[in-house]
């Protein structure tokens, strides 16, 4: 008799388990998107901007009904722009939070490290603004909506040689993934166009005192100084250059694209030209909406970092809506994306086979303490990523 009772309990339990697992097939309450960005450390201003950009995107998407009725949920972790921390965080997002996909709001070093974790886990990841070439080469799950270093370096070269007509060029490079990848591409372009490199040197991240090196650059008498930096170093380079009397035009890149650069550099920033993704004077509606809304919501001017991360989330949402939320569905939808207009730094024409986005690159000049439009580069020869 006892045996019968146990049998009944066993059958009931098994039925319960089967039914419960079957219940998992109904719609989830939200889709989790992971984001990692530095909200502490030297890169905190950029990481916070990236997080805000992502938050705005999630808000925008959810107000439009989310992914076919299911809202997006953002899961953020701070990586302090450190590769080892980024790896930890990536493991958390994949293993603990079980995100559907992820966005990088962080720098090249950290993104590179985290990308391998996502690739191995088979979770799609989009790099918002980290430029290093190796990131997308990690594997088929890793995509990039931000500018690729090779493209941005080339555009910098076109700016220097074609638009500004420089013949003598000085290159000052920040000694990391970001700087070296930009400088390599820039150098290749300008040398091919017959310009002369009159000075070239690398400096360590965090350096504050550039006068000695700027004096040497001044002696080399360049027309243009291509200086890669993040906003701290950029502000010091630009201010000290003015102080030592270096008159060459300074060309920067997206590392300068931050209201912090404008604040720390002050008047010395006037006339500095940068290659970046966000055109403040764009007449595209979504761009102006983003710039306005960002400043209203967060009380500080919008920058490229936030805009690029916003776009990464938008592209991800598009892929999820169109293809589905499984990794291979997302990846397929990304590959089929054409002329995506819902991007602040767009339009995104398409992704290449190497999962790099093709989009115009803008040059902005600092005028009266703000970034303004200077030039746009749309020539496929320049903006097509080489893979």
């Amino acid at each position, binding site marked *: 008799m006892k045996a019968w009772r146990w049998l009944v309990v066993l059958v009931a339990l098994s039925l319960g388990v089967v039914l419960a697992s079957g219940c998992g097939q109904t719609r989830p309450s939200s889709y989790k998107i992971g984001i990692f960005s530095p909200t502490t450390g030297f890169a*905190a201003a950029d990481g916070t901007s990236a997080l805000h950009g992502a938050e705005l995107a999630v808000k925008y998407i959810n107000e439009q009904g989310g992914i076919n009725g299911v809202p997006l949920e953002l899961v953020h972790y701070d990586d302090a722009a450190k590769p080892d921390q980024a790896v930890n965080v990536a493991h958390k997002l994949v293993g603990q939070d079980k995100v559907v996909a992820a966005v990088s709001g962080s720098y090249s070093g950290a993104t590179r490290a985290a990308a391998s974790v996502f690739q191995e886990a088979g979770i799609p990841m989009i790099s918002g603004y980290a430029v290093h070439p190796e990131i997308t080469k990690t594997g088929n799950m890793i995509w990039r909506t931000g500018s690729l270093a090779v493209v941005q370096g080339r555009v910098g070269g076109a700016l220097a040689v074609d638009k500004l007509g420089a013949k003598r060029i000085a290159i000052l490079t920040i000694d990391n993934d970001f700087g070296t990848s930009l400088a390599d591409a820039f150098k290749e372009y300008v040398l091919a166009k017959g310009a002369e490199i009159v000075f070239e040197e690398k*400096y*360590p991240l965090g350096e*504050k005192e550039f006068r*000695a090196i700027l004096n040497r650059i001044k002696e080399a008498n360049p027309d243009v100084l291509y200086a890669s930096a993040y906003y701290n170093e950029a*502000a010091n380079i630009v201010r000290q250059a003015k*102080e030592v009397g270096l008159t060459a035009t300074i060309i920067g890149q997206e590392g300068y694209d931050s209201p912090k650069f404008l604040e*720390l*550099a*002050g008047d010395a920033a006037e006339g500095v030209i940068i290659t970046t993704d966000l055109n403040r004077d764009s007449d595209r509606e979504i761009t102006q909406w983003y710039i306005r809304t960002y400043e209203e919501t967060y009380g500080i001017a919008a920058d490229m970092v936030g805009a690029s991360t916003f776009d990464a989330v938008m592209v991800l949402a598009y892929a999820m809506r169109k293809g589905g939320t499984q990794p291979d569905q997302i990846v397929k939808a990304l590959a089929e994306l054409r002329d995506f207009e819902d991007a602040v730094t767009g339009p995104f024409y398409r992704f290449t086979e190497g999962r790099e986005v093709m989009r115009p690159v803008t040059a902005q000049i600092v005028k009266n303490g703000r970034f303004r439009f200077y030039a746009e580069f749309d020539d496929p020869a320049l903006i097509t990523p080489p893979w």
Partner: protein
Amino acid sequence: MNLWNILLDTLTQGSIYFLIAVGLTMVYGILKILHIAHAAVYTVGAGVGLAVFRLTGNFWISLVAAMGVSGLVGVLIYRGVYFYMLDQPRIVPLITSVGLFLLMQDLLQKPFLMGPYQHAFPAQDVFPSVRLPWGDVPSAQVMILVLTAATLMGLYLLFTRTRLGLAWQAASMDRDMAGAVGINLNRAVALNFLLGSALAGAAGVLVGVFYNSVYATMGDVPSYKAFVVIVLGGMGSVSGTVVASFLLALAETVLLSFVGYVLPRDAIAFLVLILVLMFRPQGLLGRS
């Protein structure tokens, strides 16, 4: 190679290193404690200076306020922490100091204090820039050179012409004897901390203005560089600190002006430290 620029940069950097390191060497001289948390006092000075500057717009008020608050914080650290460890083996206050430094830095990074961002300190034009026949001195560098010269003068007079200065010299030679001949040790040490920390606070303000950047972790590099300076100069010797500050600045500037970044600037200090410890551990002007 423009020798004027090299000279100017050396003098400026050397002045900055001196202002930061002098407080460290003064504390070591009298207490034989390596006050690593000194670098956090430096940061507090920069933060207070900026906060007061934002309220008043006046550089001098900000400088005095920064020096006052830093001085107080320094005395508090002495009276509240080191005072209880004076007879312990020296590793105890050293490790405590490191922990204190990390704690203070972490606190300063909180959003209600300095946050994780860098902040501009737009007070560069307090002094006029100076045109000399062989080169210009921009106003920010004038500020550093003038204030450091004033400090050097003041310290010299203080150490050699006042009773307090003599008390410090006595206490650094032999603390117990100094107490035995009637020197009020507690008062002397507290004043030593007060002045050394106030100078660190001033250094924080000057560096914050000079690089137009104030942030919670700005004490990271000074925490070890000041240490290198005092080891190079002879720990406890103020004149040694003067010599060492300018020598280190010279080494950095010359290397970077002639050769470039074969080593990051801050690594040069470490190299110097290793060489000094290997070949002349008492420092250039220290007693063996």
